[in-house]
């Protein structure tokens, strides 16, 4: 059985698109930071360039794309009524854009004032997002694992940004707060409580539908978000003082949950009803292998302290998790969502019998596949950079090129939409007198 979609409440096309079309360009900015930062980027997770490019990815690329997806997904798939989506998106999207750019600049310039400014913008924007999307999810009559995971993900986003604001104040001021511990908790909520929670909730819905797999087992789908929440609660308790062995055990438990989700998704993909291997499927599978790889790496780093103590471990894990798992997954989903929405809106305009384009005309599959190959090449180069830091510049440029290509392909779909919309309008108006 597949879940049902309801497009009666779908927002105008411009609402999700204003987020989707901007997201890849933050990936370009992040990639181009690497040649500038050079080898120092790999040696420490605290280098300004690493902090800047990490936040360009998570707040520029991921947050934009995930927010756009929520504006579409919550009304259509979760039955939630989002309050004035056009207005809220018009406020949120530029705020996110400015705040992400300001935050990256603050890291590079070492400016406390800019850190505080970026944090204030994020707190304002995310508060609005949490209230509007959170209310829609709270009030929806829909039940099930997807809605439960989305509700928790919104809470995870609020926790991440709240902790980020505390960190901004902590770094900008001189309060003597345990900043390293807060950074670890902040990262845990961002990656586990927001990103993985959202991805899991959405994948319960889209993987069976678009990849023709069996559904996720109901009990496991229900249990994963709750288990993640439990682990994050334990992870956050380290702020109160905790034995280092407990902290490591909770850290590993979080990775094990992520590995469980990845293995289950790969198993479902293996049992799909039709052997389709389109770019979305391949991106998704690549993302799951990266997530699994990060979990195996985390276990090895814990068992073998000679490896785990190397400062480059953070870079290796970061590449597997961010560009490897989350960017791959979003890249793949954008190739499904963007042409589908273009096609659907055109079809509704055209009706039956009028000239509506085929969905495959929106972004040719050949262009998707070529960009996908470049993305995975950039990923391999970024991982190799761990052992050959001199390759950082090349890896960054290739990653930037891959993101730019994605941006170009998505813009192409928007252009195709405008062209076909013009044709449909002209056909409806009839021949000129």
């Amino acid at each position, binding site marked *: 059985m597949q879940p*049902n979609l309801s497009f009666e409440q779908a927002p105008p096309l411009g609402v999700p698109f204003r987020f989707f079309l901007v997201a890849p360009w933050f990936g370009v900015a992040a990639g181009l930071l690497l040649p500038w930062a050079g080898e120092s980027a790999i040696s420490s997770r605290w280098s300004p360039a690493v902090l800047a490019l990490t936040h360009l990815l998570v707040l520029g690329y991921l947050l934009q794309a995930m927010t756009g997806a929520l504006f579409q997904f919550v009304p259509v798939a979760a039955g939630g009524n989002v309050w004035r989506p056009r207005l809220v998106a018009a406020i949120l999207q530029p705020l996110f854009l400015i705040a992400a750019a300001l935050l990256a600049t603050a890291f590079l310039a070492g400016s406390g004032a800019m850190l505080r400014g970026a944090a204030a913008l994020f707190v304002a924007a995310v508060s609005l997002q949490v209230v509007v999307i959170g209310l829609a999810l709270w009030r929806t009559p829909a039940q099930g694992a997807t809605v439960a995971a989305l509700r928790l993900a919104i809470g995870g986003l609020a926790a991440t940004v709240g902790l980020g604001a505390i960190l901004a104040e902590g770094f900008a001021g001189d309060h003597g707060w345990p900043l390293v511990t807060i950074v670890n908790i902040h990262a845990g909520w961002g990656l586990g409580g927001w990103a993985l929670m959202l991805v899991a909730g959405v994948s319960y819905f889209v993987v069976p*539908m678009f*990849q023709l797999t069996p559904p996720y087992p109901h009990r496991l789908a229900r249990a994963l978000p709750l288990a993640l929440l439990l682990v994050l609660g334990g992870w956050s308790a380290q702020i109160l003082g905790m034995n280092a062995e407990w902290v490591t055990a909770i850290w590993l438990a979080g990775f094990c949950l992520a590995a469980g989700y990845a293995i289950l998704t790969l198993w479902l993909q293996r049992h799909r009803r039709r052997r389709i291997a389109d770019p979305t499927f391949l991106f998704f599978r690549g993302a799951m292998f990266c997530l699994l790889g990060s979990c195996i790496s985390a276990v090895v780093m814990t068992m073998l302290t000679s490896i785990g103590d190397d400062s480059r471990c953070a870079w290796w894990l970061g590449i597997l998790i961010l560009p490897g798992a989350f960017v791959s997954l979003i890249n793949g989903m954008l190739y499904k969502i963007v042409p589908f929405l273009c096609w*659907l809106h055109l079809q509704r305009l055209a009706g*039956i019998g009028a000239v509506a384009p*085929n*969905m495959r005309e929106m972004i040719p599959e050949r262009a998707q596949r070529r960009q996908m190959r470049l993305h995975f090449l950039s990923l391999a180069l970024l991982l190799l950079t761990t052992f050959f830091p001199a390759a950082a510049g090349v890896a960054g440029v290739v990653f930037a090129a891959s993101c730019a290509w994605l941006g170009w392909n998505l813009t192409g779909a928007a252009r195709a939409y405008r062209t076909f919309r013009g044709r449909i309008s002209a056909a409806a108006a009839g021949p000129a007198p």
Partner: protein
Amino acid sequence: MPAVIDGRDMVPPEPLELTLAALDTLVADEELLLLLYCQPRPLFGILESEGYVWREDLRADGTREIRIRKGKS
């Protein structure tokens, strides 16, 4: 025998694309049978606005049979 589109193993929006193409050539009193595992709400919206009528039955295996005809004008 109605024309049949078995969309159960198709990736969205393939079943919708094929259905709309088939409806374009559907004559009066002819029926189109669409088989799916989900409710095609976007299709229902289009059918309603274009004056088609449909009947939906749920099989024990979860398959939805959607029988579509042209409405009486």
